[in-house]
């Protein structure tokens, strides 16, 4: 009889807290058994600014999901986002130690340790060390073990964040007596579940446009070579519309969803749209251009920032990103956003389609990060050096007794 464990995927977003519960059966598959989401409180641009309010919100979402699933969560996989996240590419190098120039495990470990050796300041903490291909004497190799060469190199894309901000998000989860088994940045989580292996090999840019931030991850030849966070998201678009149209945020959000498009077309000037569309007092007509121009400006800004970062890293090579841009996150539902991405980045773009093997209600962009967390719960992160405490009877008892 195979054992099962219940894992929770928690994404504390700027506009929404999303919780998915999955039951991992053995080590082969995962069933989604519960989910919930609620409007976020105490979070700005992906960063927890009010610990108490955020805790209330997150705890309520977790308990609702538990009630839906009629079970309790054993462990949590937590998404991390926010402009505090930074990345560095570090290269580790070692001379092959043996006289016969055959790469041994010790050489590999030496190279990887060298790549991860870079010290951060005390205020920073590592979230990921993402391994890139090894190379022996400058030639990329998939697995260097037992290969012949003099000089072994490996690159790591290391993602780190502000220690206090990361700690705050951990405290929120621990406040409900749950431990965080792993922390994954939102873009990597989304990419893990949205991309096929072939798409990763061909190169792809996953852009997750959330409420307060836009996370992106660039895959090249199957490896993550760049991640980033743009502190602009769908809420900024709504805010711009609210100011530009001089309406409330709620009306601006409705107008964005109903009439919005991510880019401006020449015909938008003549086309009129109703603000509310229900002919109530106060409802009025606007030229569509008033809406699309505002949205285009903000969406273009997001993509331009991403473009700048790609260019800066010398990674905006269309041939290396053959699978194009995959757009996800709540704001990716915006009409024409793929065209806007195409125009800005010069790459093919498409709106994501959620995994086919989940229920339709979860096959929406808003859940891609949480689904990606569950994917990691199932597959794990390779090279994990520390794992959660073994769930022995004493640990479980300790957990129950809250000691």
């Amino acid at each position, binding site marked *: 009889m195979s054992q099962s464990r219940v894992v929770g995927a928690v994404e504390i977003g700027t506009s929404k807290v999303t919780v998915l519960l999955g039951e991992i059966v053995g080590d082969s598959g995962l069933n989604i058994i519960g989910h919930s989401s609620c409007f976020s409180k105490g979070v700005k641009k992906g960063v927890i600014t009010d610990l108490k309010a955020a805790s209330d919100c997150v705890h309520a979402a*977790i308990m609702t999901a538990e009630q839906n699933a009629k079970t309790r969560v054993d462990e949590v996989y937590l998404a991390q986002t926010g402009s505090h996240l930074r990345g560095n590419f570090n290269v580790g190098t070692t001379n092959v130690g043996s006289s016969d120039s055959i790469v041994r495990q010790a050489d590999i470990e030496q190279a990887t340790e060298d790549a991860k050796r870079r010290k*951060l300041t005390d205020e920073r903490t*590592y979230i990921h060390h*993402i391994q890139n291909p090894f190379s022996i004497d400058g030639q990329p190799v998939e697995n260097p073990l037992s290969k012949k060469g003099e000089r072994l190199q490996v690159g790591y894309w290391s993602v780190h964040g502000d220690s206090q901000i990361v700690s705050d998000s951990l405290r929120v989860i621990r406040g409900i007596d749950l431990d965080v088994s792993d922390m994954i940045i939102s873009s990597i989580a989304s990419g893990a579940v949205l991309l096929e292996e072939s798409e990763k090999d061909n190169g792809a840019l996953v852009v997750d446009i959330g409420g307060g931030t836009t996370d992106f991850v660039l895959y090249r030849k199957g490896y993550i070579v760049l991640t980033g966070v743009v502190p602009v998201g769908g809420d900024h678009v709504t805010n711009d519309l609210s100011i530009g149209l001089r309406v409330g945020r709620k009306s601006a959000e409705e107008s964005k969803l109903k009439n919005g498009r991510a880019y401006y077309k020449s015909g938008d000037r003549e086309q009129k749209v109703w603000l509310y569309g229900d002919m109530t007092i106060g409802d009025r007509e606007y030229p569509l251009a008033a809406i699309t121009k505002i949205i285009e400006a903000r969406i273009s800004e997001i993509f331009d920032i991403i473009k700048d970062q790609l260019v800066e890293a010398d990674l905006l090579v269309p041939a290396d990103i053959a699978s194009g841009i995959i757009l996800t996150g709540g704001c990716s539902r915006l009409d024409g956003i793929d065209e806007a991405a195409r125009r800005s980045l010069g790459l093919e773009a498409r709106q994501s389609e959620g995994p086919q093997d989940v229920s339709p209600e979860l096959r929406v962009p808003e859940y891609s990060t949480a689904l990606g967390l569950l994917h990691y719960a199932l597959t794990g992160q*390779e090279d*994990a050096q520390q794992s959660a405490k073994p769930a022995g009877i004493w640990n479980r008892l300790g957990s129950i007794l809250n000691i």
Partner: protein
Amino acid sequence: MIGSGKQKGGTSAGGEQSWRELAGPRRSRVNSPQARKRRQSRWFKFFAGFVLLLVVLGGLAWVGSTFKNRQQAIPMAPSSKPIERIIFDTDGVLSDNWLSQTIKLRPGMSMMEADIHALKKSVEADVQVKSASVERVFPSDLRIRVKERVPALRLAIAGADGKRQLRLVARDGVVYDGIGYSKARLKNLPFVQPYRHADGSFFPMRGIEPVAELLELVRSTEPNIFRTWQVVSLEHYSGALDIPGQVIEVRSTIVPRIIFGSSADYGRQLDRLTYIFEYVRKQGNPSIERIDLSLRGSAAVQFSSGRVGTF
């Protein structure tokens, strides 16, 4: 289920300066009403589970104990604990020594091996014992309760060897050897001159019960008179109370013959006797040969001088 393809290249941030080092003390966690509710629910479930576990364990222990006891009850019966003590209760004078000689228990005999019915029978075989009960007091005691006959009279008979032998007569007429009585007690008992049946035998002795009542009445109310009584003659008392004219004759150290009517009221007769003694004492204690209290209207006193008085 969602896919299981792995990320190419590791992404873990284990090691130095990893987020995993940001554990922090537990007390720094942020509480919320939901968290408290969840914690309380967890405690409640833990407590309920603990109670349930105790109940189950208690139940199992009870079932196990019951099963064990049942197991013991059947096959262990013959090999139960040996008898360690015999509790002997008697309302009479029989001693533990008498009991040990009367019942023969094999050393190390177990409680269940002892045949309590046979033991009762052997105890009751001694006619001094009126009734007996034997019971097992687990785990290792045997209790024997005995009700003894109470002697009312002494009987002196000639044995086969011609020697005088002493017997006791109980209230129910049973004659027995009498074991364990003190000499003082026996000395206070008058001898009986039994009724001789048509075949010349003394036994069975009938009607001793009314005689014993008379003796008890005198002993308790007029002990000075009782102490003078030496022989109770039943020569004219067959014990058949429906036959008129039967008398109980007492021979005392003061008056050779005091005759009580068997069917009359002993109390009234005793009152007359005491009156006569009082009268005689006032008259200077003239010697009396016979007092007949069995007469209906009055008592007749025959003095040694030959004078007869009625009272």
